[in-house]
């Protein structure tokens, strides 16, 4: 998995996405611009991060969950 490793921790690209969400809820398009990652990878990665509980989705934007906030500390 590109954003979450088999042991359940965010990978390097997963951490890049999480850090982009540090201060604001962003859409996948905004995350792609902010991180320089291709949009298809951002969308795929957000699915994994959401499934693993690191991010939450609301109105087409993503924000850090409590677990996500702890992960980037």
């Amino acid at each position: 998995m590109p954003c979450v490793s088999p042991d359940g921790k965010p990978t390097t690209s997963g951490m890049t996405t999480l850090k982009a969400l540090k201060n604001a809820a962003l859409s996948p398009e905004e995350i792609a611009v902010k991180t320089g990652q291709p949009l298809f990878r951002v969308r795929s990665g957000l699915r994994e991060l959401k499934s693993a509980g690191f991010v939450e989705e609301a109105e087409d934007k993503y924000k850090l969950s409590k677990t996500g906030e702890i992960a980037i500390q």
Partner: protein
Amino acid sequence: MFVFIKQGENKMVEAQKEEMGLPILGQKAPDFEALTTQGTLRLSDYKGTWLILFSHPADFTPVCTTEFMAFAEIYDELKKRNVELLGLSVDSVSSHIAWIRNCEEKMGVKIPFPIIADLNKDVARKYGMIHPEQSKTETVRCVFIIDAESKIRAMLYYPLTTGRNMSEILRLIDALQTADKHKVATPANWKPGDPVVVPAPSTAEQAEERLKQGYECKDWYLCTKKIPESE
């Protein structure tokens, strides 16, 4: 009795056709979720960008290796055109990873795009990538050009023996995007910068009018124009 047998045969043929799939130009590209070298990807992950979905027969084979290096070489040009690449074969993710590492180590070419590991042939069947007269188990060399709205805009099918031409693939992308942007068509052997074809008139009045519009016309139905470089 004969009728029942015939109906049964027809149903079987229809079922086989459905299983093989045969995409049609202009239709929505069949959706999929697939394991790739860059994680699990869905077709919908590419919405808003153009996508070249292409298949190859097998990893660690000579023609496919030359093609992958060639695709990698045009990747930056494709990105300038808002186009992503996604490869596919019926090999495993482990095989794909070993092969792309080999390409980098032995050939010095990094493969920057993901490759679908279609071991159960789910995607290959949806896109009609397996042609039994070529191979019953491997995918042939298909190229599907899918636009930002997920519509199939062009398809190429090459046999196992023949590697694809990257210049033609880039030319095809340029032609499709030019046609969309300027509402024109492109003539034979067109390349960027060449005159484009003005769509044929649909009424006698339009045919008369277009002769006065400054186009270069061989006749009323065959007119071309230059697109200014700034556009």
